[in-house]
């Protein structure tokens, strides 16, 4: 039994199943879109305040309402302790602007990783201490190994395994290996009222 008393529970659980730690650093929450069933652990940092400041359309389409969301996160994503998501920024049409960061479903971001990509597909596994550079595009079913430095603007094709400094494609996800990217089980292990992990072991 844990002696730690938790008055309120460590996580805020939303109706759509998101579990957000109270100790997570979410800045500019009105610009962060969570798809549901996403876990954000303590000390994870999400910079929603760095929004786009130059409209995507030309000057003619200025009347269209501009959504200002800077970070989109899909379903069953898992942001570990100390990771940091921030939108990438660059000079666009003569002015500096941040661009939105889009993350698909079933994406795992490891501890102390920094993600500044433009797009991350679905079923992507980013291990601990990795750095994903600005405007990188990561397609689906990609595994980024520990300590990888993915350079800015790199495009990583689907089913790649990436490692090294700078990050290079070192292999492919093997046949049938895509099942390891499933995040539903990991989602169930986090939250306020988690059944004890190994009751069978305690009984034995």
């Amino acid at each position, binding site marked *: 039994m844990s002696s730690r008393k938790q008055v309120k529970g460590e996580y805020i659980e939303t109706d759509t199943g998101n579990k957000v730690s109270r100790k997570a650093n979410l*800045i500019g929450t009105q610009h962060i879109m969570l798809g549901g069933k996403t876990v954000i652990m303590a000390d994870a*940092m999400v910079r929603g305040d760095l929004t786009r400041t130059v409209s995507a359309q030309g000057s003619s389409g200025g009347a269209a309402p501009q959504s200002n969301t800077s970070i989109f996160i899909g379903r069953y994503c898992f942001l570990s302790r100390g990771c*940091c998501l921030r939108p990438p920024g660059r000079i666009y049409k003569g002015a*500096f*602007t941040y661009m939105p960061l889009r993350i698909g479903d079933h994406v795992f971001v490891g501890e102390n990783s*920094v993600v500044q990509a433009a797009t991350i597909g679905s079923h992507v596994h980013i291990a601990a*201490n990795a*750095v994903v550079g600005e405007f990188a595009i990561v397609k689906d079913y990609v595994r980024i190994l520990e300590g990888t430095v993915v350079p800015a603007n790199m495009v990583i094709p689907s089913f790649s395994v990436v490692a090294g*400094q700078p990050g290079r494609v070192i292999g492919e996800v093997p046949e049938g290996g895509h099942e390891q990217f499933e995040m539903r089980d990991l989602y169930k292990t986090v939250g306020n009222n988690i059944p004890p992990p190994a009751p069978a072991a305690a009984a034995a």
Partner: protein
Amino acid sequence: MSSSTKRHSMMPRAGQLPKAPVNISSSVVIHDNAVLTGNHTINISSETVIHPRNKLDSSHGRITIGRRCIIHERVVIGAPSSDPTKGEFGVTLEDYVTVEVAAIIESGCTTIGEGCQIGVGVRIGRGAKLGKHCTITARSVIQPGEQLPDYTVLYSNGTRRTDKRGVTDLKNKAQARQIDVMRRLITTNINRFKE
């Protein structure tokens, strides 16, 4: 026992570390979540932007930050080093320096030259001297006392080259534009950090 059921911690809260004596220009942008602590002076020159969750720790020496620097989140400037002897000053950042997420700059006569780009998660040892317009890529480590000549590009796998593009003026201009945007995006209340 008091009737209050709330437990009070004996440790000072993170936001209540001793405030450092500061000397900040009024055009500086510092997010409220940044921490300026220590007992030596922290000087921050005009138009510098400091992102949230930064820690500027002057307890091991004076910190000077130049004009139009950008310090991204979770950077620690003035981190304690393994060598406890105090230097003449702590850390000096010249103008137009960019320090990216989670970099650590140790205290003890550490100098970062004008226009340097310090990448994500870099660690710079005490007494290191970086020349002008150096680029340090992500997760590199600079040993204590190391000196880099001007325009050095250091990669995290240890290789290095000299930047001969000659785009320093353009880079400084881009930095100024970036700061203009950040001034609009980051809420700041400088008086909080002053006495």
